[in-house]
């Protein structure tokens, strides 16, 4: 199996762009913050897939994580909105222009606490957004309080122990209707990159929970979201091989050892099975897998669930092909006859 990754330097991608417009401003996050690594993978994925930044919108809520859209894809429009409400803003933007590619970045506090309501409904609607949770189990920007994804028994720097069960955002997303659900780790470059590229080929909500250690507040012994802990307890559910539609590569697996998924844009995703009963297109097994690894104190990473053919929200709404935002006057203002008819009916 082989996927060509571009060398650094003046390499240009499929649509003739250098990596520059995929980069963003200089990060103001802490050195070593997991969020920075995720930004880099996002840059790589969009560059390698040849997505035009001018067609991309980047959205976020509030938090260290939510700042990160400023640090990638400088050529794209960005919207750093308010705490926990990125889902509604992203939904509105995609309704306005369904031709855009939306990437939303949130934090575990931004999503799990104040934003869980909008999260639920975005998943349920299967709005075409790549929704990334940069998950560090704490509130980085407000100095390290526990977030709702903090594990039971995880310990804060100041010794406070978390005594509430975590919200598993992947289970929730699967349960609620998201059609592409994955979990990864900011330190796992290869896996994260494959997932992001696959997400760019999917039409519908791609919910990607990326464990992303907070080096300043939650990277110590006793934390279950530290680099060390995550490296030790990550359980990939299988290798991911992604073949974009514009590459002609054949992948060989022994029959029965991998699931092949054909994506919306013609790309192909090969998911190697680790356990025999692992079926990433079946909700129940996906949910059980997550729960079981959780009970073992581990966390399953990789493509957890995928439903490539599910209708996304703009399709459900039967929108015209063109962006609503720029329909010309004659298509959005009915004629004089319509007004006359309505007036007549009211006389």
């Amino acid at each position, binding site marked *: 199996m082989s996927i060509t990754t571009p060398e650094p330097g003046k390499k240009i991608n499929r649509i003739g762009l250098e990596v520059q417009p995929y980069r963003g*401003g200089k990060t103001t996050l802490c050195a070593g913050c997991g969020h920075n690594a995720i930004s880099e993978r996002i840059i790589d994925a969009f560059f390698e897939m040849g997505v035009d930044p001018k067609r991309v919108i980047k*959205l976020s809520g509030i938090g260290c994580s939510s700042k990160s859209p400023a640090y990638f894809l400088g050529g794209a429009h960005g919207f750093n909105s*308010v705490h926990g409400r990125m889902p509604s803003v992203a939904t*509105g933007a995609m309704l306005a222009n369904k031709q*855009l590619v939306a990437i939303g970045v949130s934090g575990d506090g931004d999503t799990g606490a104040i934003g869980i309501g909008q999260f639920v409904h975005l998943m349920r609607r299967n709005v075409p957004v790549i929704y990334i949770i940069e998950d560090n189990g704490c509130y980085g920007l407000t100095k390290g309080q526990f977030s709702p994804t903090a594990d039971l028994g995880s310990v804060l720097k100041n010794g406070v122990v978390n005594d509430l069960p975590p919200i598993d955002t992947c289970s929730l997303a699967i349960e609620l209707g998201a059609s592409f659900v994955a979990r990864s780790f900011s330190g796992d470059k290869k896996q994260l990159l494959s997932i992001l590229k696959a997400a760019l080929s999917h039409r519908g909500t791609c919910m990607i929970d990326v464990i992303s250690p907070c080096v300043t507040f939650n990277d110590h012994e006793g934390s279950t979201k530290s680099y060390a802990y995550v490296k030790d307890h990550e359980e990939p559910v299988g290798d991911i091989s992604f073949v974009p539609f514009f590459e002609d590569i054949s992948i060989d697996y022994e029959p029965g050892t991998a699931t092949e998924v054909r994506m919306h844009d013609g790309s192909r995703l090969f998911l190697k099975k680790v356990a025999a009963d692992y079926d990433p297109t079946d909700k129940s097994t996906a949910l059980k897998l997550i729960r079981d690894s959780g009970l073992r104190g581990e966390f399953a990473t990789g493509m957890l669930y995928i439903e490539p053919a599910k209708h996304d929200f703009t399709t459900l709404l039967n929108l015209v092909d063109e962006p609503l935002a*720029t*329909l010309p006057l004659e298509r959005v203002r009915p004629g004089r006859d319509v007004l006359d008819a309505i*007036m007549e009916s009211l006389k």
Partner: protein
Amino acid sequence: MPAAGTDILIINDFSIQVATVNGSGSQTANLVLLRSIFQMGIPVSGKNLFPSNIAGLPTWYTIRANKDGYVARKKEIDLLVAMNAETAREDVLALGPGAAVVYDEPLKLDQLRQDLVFYPVPFDRIVAEVCKDAKLRRLVKNMIYDGVLSQLLNIDLAQMEHALRRQMGKKLKAIELNLAALEAGKKFAAEHLVKQDPYVVEPMDKTQGQILMEGNAAGALGCMMAGVTVVAWYPITPSSSLPETLIQYMKKYRMDKTSGKATFAIVQAEDEIAAVGMVLGAGWAGARAMTSTSGPGISLMGEFTGLSYYAEVPGVVFDIQRVGPSTGLPTRTAQGDILTVAMLSHGDTKQIMLLPATVEECYTTAMDAFDLAERFQTLIFVLSDLDLGMNTWMSNPFEYPTKPLDRGKLLDQDALQRMGEFGRYKDIDGDGITFRTIPGDGMPAYFTRGSGHNERGQYSERPDDYVNNVQRLARKFETARQYVPPPVIDQAPGARVGIIAYGTTHFAVEESRSHLANDAGLPTSYLRLRAYPFTDDLPAFIERHDRLYVVEQNRDGQMLSLMRMELDPSLTSKLRSVRHFNGLPIDARSVTDEILTQEKQAGLQGARSHAVPVGPAV
């Protein structure tokens, strides 16, 4: 038809109140009654006073017919139709002497008072005769009082039939049944009731070519004509009928002819925060987007409103006001969100508000709102109310819009050249309004944020960047004074007293002015506000008068407070307050009485006390 027992006839000037139980299907009978009078050429209005409940609680429907075109709520009920046993006693006791009561005979209401005219009607007996199917009787029964009134008030039965057919469309069976009830009612009245009250209807020509419509439907129509493309809403009384009517219109008139697909997206959001969030996302991405809500929703939209103000993202919010605070009286009317909306969200913010008074203005204001939203790149709040939104009003038919859409300052090559490098928040025109680009439009991208930013939209915590930016926002708000609909002014020659009002208060004021001028010898000038921020017309109007009454439907004199905040104290010292806030639409007599009382006081004393609002409430 001369009435026995009365000496004078009162023609085309009365109010009818029908007291029923909600969910009992009286709406058809009431609309038929309203419409038949309207068709006879007499100005009317119909107001539904209903409970916050689905079925089983008291409901009152009030029709006012007035030859002079005054259609505000009339404080006095001239003719009561008492169908609801539960409230009948109280309803009758509340009437003024001389009023007439049509009632369900078994209620024996005639024993309650001597000074009224009573018309007992054995509804159950009559309905049993015309409607064999006992299950249908409940629905048909109401049509009987229409028949009775047709006889008593001299309303043309043919007009009632016409109205009924219109109402029921193709349901031929139902029409037949209802017609029979109508006729039976009329027949009963003709045979058994002796006209003793003075109220009669005579044909006129004052409604020729006019329409009957609710404000929310008119607003919806305006939104469609404004080219709205994204609608996110959450159900709430009295707002829901705006988006719900819009859905109907859009499904009918805004499906793309060739593809059969929708040129719009309408989403029932999970709540008001999500609704306004979707509006802002869509507005940011270039769509004309809107939501509609009422007080509780407004309170929830505070945070996003601040984002819209500060990050400059367009959108339209309809606030169909109901009685607050909190859940309050969800099915009663008020103008109580003025102050809250004007300064919605923390920090230094000011919101632009539009204030339609008529159904026609609901239509035109909706179109203005989208233009202003794109011009000023911020949420525009349209403050209607339950009375306007859900009740039935006469209007001239609406005019087809001829202006193109104002999409505001979208960056183009010319602007880019003038600017040098694109700066999202660079004020090259000096009006506080800057140029924006839209994702996917190929123009330079920028980063939108609710946090501090400089002219180029970059993150900044610099004191000077902050000050420059918020001062520009203040400048932009000043610019808005030139763009919002100016007040409508009626200057009475020589009048020393002025009245200031807005929204549905207009109708009571109009009528009160005629009372004041004709009955009390007090001519008044009138300024009807149509927007906040105020235009210069307001201080100029105040300047021209000695005393001005700000009439509004809230407890705290909210619009007066805004004026006191904004205008020079030498002007605001002339302002007095007339307030009506019991949940019923304001009526002319209350306004007149209160103004006359205060005028008398003004004659006696000079100075006024400290507390605002000046003057007692109506």
